[in-house]
């Protein structure tokens, strides 16, 4: 049985529906992520799991027990708050000992357990410091240690890395993955950062306006989004409105305005579709002055309109002859190349394979 069952949970604030009939089933030991834009209801859902807020409808079941009316202190769930919420009047040691004291851990054991928890997050030697004497990354680790010290069934993390700089964030992500593996506790992780979600999670629920749009493993989510929202939210994506001109077994011939005829692989459920969207990742489009790759069945001539240099890759915006603009990503991997291959105005040819685009039925 699943560790956490969320059954058609709804939460309204006056006439605004913040969480709208969400159902999720989360297994023990999973690193599960709630991903969605700001205001989509992630925190609201998390607060109901922790017990700070009650659903207006639906049911939350942890370990087979209905949580209706169970206060936060009686749930075997701990939270790492976005602000970390470390007690400012207690030292690191006292902060981490707090949950142990609350659960009536024998006094003799507390010292050892605290040291063990500090060791888990590599913070030994910081016992006597107060939270305001720590760096952001150290505070974050204290918050994690405090939430993990008495081994809850479920750990909720609400954007715990949002306040950290990019380098530290990456480091903490690796540490979190390792930690989760080590302790084997179920993590429910909230973020609006899709890269972070893809990097960390076993499964991701993409939320939008209080609903779950798609729930899948990262690779599936990225390569086979179920709808426009998910395709657009996760990674860069060209979204091309199209009509189905011809459907022949496994392939679709699509007409895209200002572009022309495009061939795409059919997907499950595309049979009989007449309208849809072709989701095309920029990194799956090839670009050259003259394309040599014969596998690119979709080929268009055009010129470079603009580009965005980001160090490891460059994103080119190519305007094809029909007038449509397509984003193309090119890794800057040529030895000695300092910046870019093409200048705005250069005549180029772009192309992609039949299975590069992903057809989304309307």
């Amino acid at each position, binding site marked *: 049985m699943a560790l956490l069952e969320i059954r058609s949970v709804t939460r309204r604030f006056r006439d605004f529906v913040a969480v709208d009939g969400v159902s999720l089933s989360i297994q023990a030991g999973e690193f599960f992520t709630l991903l969605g834009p700001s205001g989509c209801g992630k925190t609201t859902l998390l607060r109901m799991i922790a017990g700070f807020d009650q659903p207006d409808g639906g049911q939350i079941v942890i370990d087979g027990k209905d949580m209706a009316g169970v206060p936060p202190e009686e749930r075997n*769930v*701990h*939270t790492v708050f976005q602000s970390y*919420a470390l007690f*400012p009047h207690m030292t690191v040691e006292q902060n981490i000992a*707090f*949950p142990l004291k609350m659960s009536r851990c024998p006094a003799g054991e507390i010292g050892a357990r605290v040291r063990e928890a500090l060791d888990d997050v590599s913070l030994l030697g910081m016992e006597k410091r107060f939270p305001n004497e720590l760096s952001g990354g150290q505070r974050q680790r204290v918050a994690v240690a*405090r939430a993990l010290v008495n081994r809850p069934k479920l750990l909720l993390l609400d954007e715990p890395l949002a306040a950290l700089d990019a380098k530290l964030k990456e480091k903490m992500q690796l540490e979190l993955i390792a930690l989760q593996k080590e302790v084997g506790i179920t993590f429910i992780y909230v973020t609006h950062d899709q890269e972070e979600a893809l990097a960390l999670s076993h499964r991701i629920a993409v939320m939008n306006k209080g609903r779950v749009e798609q729930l899948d493993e990262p690779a599936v989510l990225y390569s086979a989004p179920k709808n426009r929202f998910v395709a657009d939210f996760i990674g860069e994506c060209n979204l091309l409105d199209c009509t189905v001109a011809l459907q022949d077994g496994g392939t679709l011939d699509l007409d895209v305005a200002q572009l022309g005829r495009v061939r795409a692989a059919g997907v499950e459920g595309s049979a009989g579709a007449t309208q849809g969207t072709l989701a095309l990742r920029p990194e799956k489009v090839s670009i050259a002055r003259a394309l040599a790759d014969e596998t690119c069945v979709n080929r268009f001539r055009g010129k470079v309109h603009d580009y965005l240099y980001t160090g490891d890759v460059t994103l080119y915006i190519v305007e094809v002859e029909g007038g449509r603009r397509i984003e193309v990503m090119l890794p800057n991997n040529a030895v000695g190349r300092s910046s870019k291959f093409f200048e705005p105005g250069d005549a180029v040819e772009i192309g992609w394979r039949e299975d590069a685009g992903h057809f989304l039925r309307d």
Partner: protein
Amino acid sequence: MRRRPWLVWTAGVLTYLFLYVPLIIVVVYSFNDSRLNAEWVGFTTHWYGELLRDEQMIEAAWNSLLIGVVASAVSTVLGTMAGYAIYRFRLRLLPILVVMPIAIPEILMGVSLLIFFVMLNLTLGLVSIILSHIAFCVGFVAIVVRSRLSGMDESLIEAARDLGATPVQAFRLVTLPLIMPGIVAGALMAFTLSIDDFVITFFTAGVDSVTLPLQIYSMIKIAVTPEVNAVSTLLMLLTLVLIVIATRLAPGSFRGK
């Protein structure tokens, strides 16, 4: 501003002079070896000795101290509860009710309390003074405590609950220590308000109970003697000591963050 620091400095120095010169004069003349507050004659501690022999003065001091301690203790507890309730349940009416005694003219408060006590058939004396001091001190404590609470990160209380604390434990182990500076400041404020209250005490004291301010008033009706200076100096000293203690106990609420 930056180009004319001397202007700021002058304004600052003048303000402090205005505030402190009268107090300094009182202190200096309490050591003056003369019955008159007119000219400096010589140093003496005679007037302090005189105070100690003045039985009425001693009694008034004891009364003031007793009233101050009891009234501030009770109003600290009540005011903390009120401040917490206002914050926690986002009450609208309670703040108004609590602040009312501070806002309305003291003389009105004194008169109405007097009428109230008479209606209740309560003998005017220490008890009625303490009750009326509590009535106007609660509001001050509540305001200070509430403002301390609203400066507190609410997720700290949630974190405590999340980590297994019952509501009572969360209050005792997290909320209370964090608002303690506010409570101490409120208690101190209540005590000083009580010690130097004149108007309300005047109305509710009855005939037998005298507090320091009442005693000083009855003395200066005759003349401002050095004895008055001496007792005022002692009052000032007491206040100063209290403030120093409070800033030691609760650095946050006095020095800012």
